[in-house]
């Protein structure tokens, strides 16, 4: 197996809040290799957005990195100077946001913005940047790039906006492409097309794609490896097949079970996970999922569970993972 292009090692991040330090991310480790599509899955408050912000280096001012590092090509990017971080962002690590409407300026045309995004590209003429931007629009499936080049974001449909956002992110041929809920704002038909586009891009895009989502359907369709997060921790990781067909962590299993798309039969009363997320200012001293877990015993409530290796490539943070 090749060396990781991007790795998050034992990263803990807290936010200063009125109630105290909110431990949004606790000892999270994630690895991504070139050519892989990584899925980071979890519900609101699981820490996936904090993890994404750390990777692209846009942490909020009240965020404190307690421990750990984010290594990109062997360098810890959290320790870089502001200037070095800025150079990395967009050029080596690019991001596609959930809401493409607010990711673009409403007063500039799509074309002007796609040219501006290449500002740092030295020794390339404006005409060449324009040509590349148009080629990229065509690449992401925008019909008639010539015409759409001079349109504004509000004139595009949701699906087209997301295509343009992907084009913008790929313009500088980044090594890591992060996509935060890239299909949540879209209809199923558009979602299927964006999934298809991302899958197609894999063939000629050499870098890593990291998809952050709560949508299991998207992960199942697109990803190679999956990291499941709960209450700031990575509770299970494995290949997409290991996670969807051999999940060992009770939270992963509960999450899969809850997805209505997973239920074959007509089910008028849908399954739900009882209870609520724990308070992250005072996280439980044992397993953070124990209060909601049907398998929990005394040890789970009092002692933090270890990460147990299940198979090659699959591990879970649970005492019962090997049962």
């Amino acid at each position, binding site marked *: 197996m090749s060396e990781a292009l991007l790795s998050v090692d034992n990263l803990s991040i807290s936010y200063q809040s009125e109630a105290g330090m909110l431990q949004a991310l606790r000892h999270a480790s994630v690895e991504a290799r070139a050519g892989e599509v990584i899925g980071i899955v979890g519900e609101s408050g699981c820490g996936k957005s904090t993890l994404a912000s750390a990777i692209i280096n846009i942490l909020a001012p009240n965020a404190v990195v307690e421990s750990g590092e984010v290594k990109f090509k062997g360098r810890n990017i959290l320790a870089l100077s502001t200037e070095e971080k800025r150079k990395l962002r967009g050029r080596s690590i690019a991001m596609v946001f959930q809401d493409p409407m607010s990711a673009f300026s409403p007063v500039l045309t799509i074309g002007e913005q796609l040219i501006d995004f290449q500002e740092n590209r030295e020794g390339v003429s404006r005409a060449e940047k324009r040509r590349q931007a148009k080629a990229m629009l065509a690449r992401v499936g925008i019909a008639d790039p010539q015409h759409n080049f001079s349109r504004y974001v509000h004139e595009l449909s949701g699906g087209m906006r997301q295509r343009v956002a992907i084009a913008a992110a790929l313009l500088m041929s980044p090594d890591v492409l992060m996509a935060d809920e890239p299909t949540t704002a879209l209809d199923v038909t558009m979602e*299927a097309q964006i999934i298809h586009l991302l899958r197609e891009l894999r063939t000629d895009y050499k870098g890593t794609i990291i998809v952050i989502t709560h949508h299991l*359907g998207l992960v*199942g*369709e697109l990803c190679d490896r999956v990291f499941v997060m709960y209450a700031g921790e990575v509770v299970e990781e494995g290949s997409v*097949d290991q996670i969807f*067909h051999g999940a060992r962590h009770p939270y992963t299993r509960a*999450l899969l079970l809850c*997805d209505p798309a997973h239920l074959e039969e007509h089910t008028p009363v*849908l399954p739900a996970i009882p209870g609520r997320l724990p308070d992250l200012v005072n996280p439980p001293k044992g397993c953070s999922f124990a209060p909601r877990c049907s398998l929990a015993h005394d040890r789970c409530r009092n002692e933090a569970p270890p990460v147990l290796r299940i198979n090659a490539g699959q591990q879970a943070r649970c005492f019962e993972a090997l049962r």
Partner: protein
Amino acid sequence: MTALYDMRDVGHDLQATSLSWRGLFADKKSSINILSGVTLSIGKGETMGLVGESGSGKTTLARVLLGLKPATSGELAFEGRPLKAADDFAHLRRNSALMFQDPVASLSPRMKVENLVTEPFIIHGIKMQSRNARAVELLERVGLPANIALRYPHELSGGQARRVCVARALALNPKLVIADEPTAGLDVSVQNEILNLMTELKNRLEISFLIITHNLATVRHVTDRVAIMYLGRLVEQGPTREVFAKPLHPYTKSLIASEPQPDPRKRRKDPAIKGEIPGVLARPSGCEFHTRCAHAQPRCTAVTPESRTLAPDRIVRCHLAEHLI
């Protein structure tokens, strides 16, 4: 099942004033057809799903149904009483409620939950002994503790805000509740709790629900009947189980096939449906779906298909439906 609400051949046109150079001098009125030929009936105690892509006219249909927008053609009837005069709509509004798409935006940020959920009583001039006691009672019905009554909307979680919206919608014991994307933006576990709450209240209080959504996975489980909308027309309707087991319209088929599968072993090669929904301003001729349909024939581009009943309670608007099964 007796019908609670009947729509017969309903259409809605949007009046637009075009401002062309000529329009500056001669005000030229034009109308844009949004809904057309919508025939739908919602049974007593039934949950109906209304499914379609953005821009298909789902929300407009809900607004026409409640009289918030006029039906420019066709007939509406609630409990067998035709909706024509203002009085008829007043009766409808007293017995129906709308749950809006964005719960936080639909809860006034300056009002406490107790005032929000009891506002319908004030609007309809119904006396209450104590506003707080009433609010606590309504909150209890949706599984919220009494102390929520004194909170402001920004102090609620997404799931709690939804529950407050359910409590408010049910305040006057309506016979019909229209829920516009009731679970958009919620985590799957919380989404299921809200849907289960709606199902439980429906069974207990005999309410009819119209759930507007583009989430097929939930429609499949929580609705009794389903109607599929495309560019302002209902292209198919029938019992949910039958529609999902054997969709008759090519659009329904491709919608179901588009749903991402939470199973890497069932990955699809190709998207089931290509292109985008055409706008109402560029409504295709004949069958509106022909521009994206894999089975389209010359007849489809020329002749608009009528709604046909192919089997008991299975209505479809497609020339070729029986050949495609």
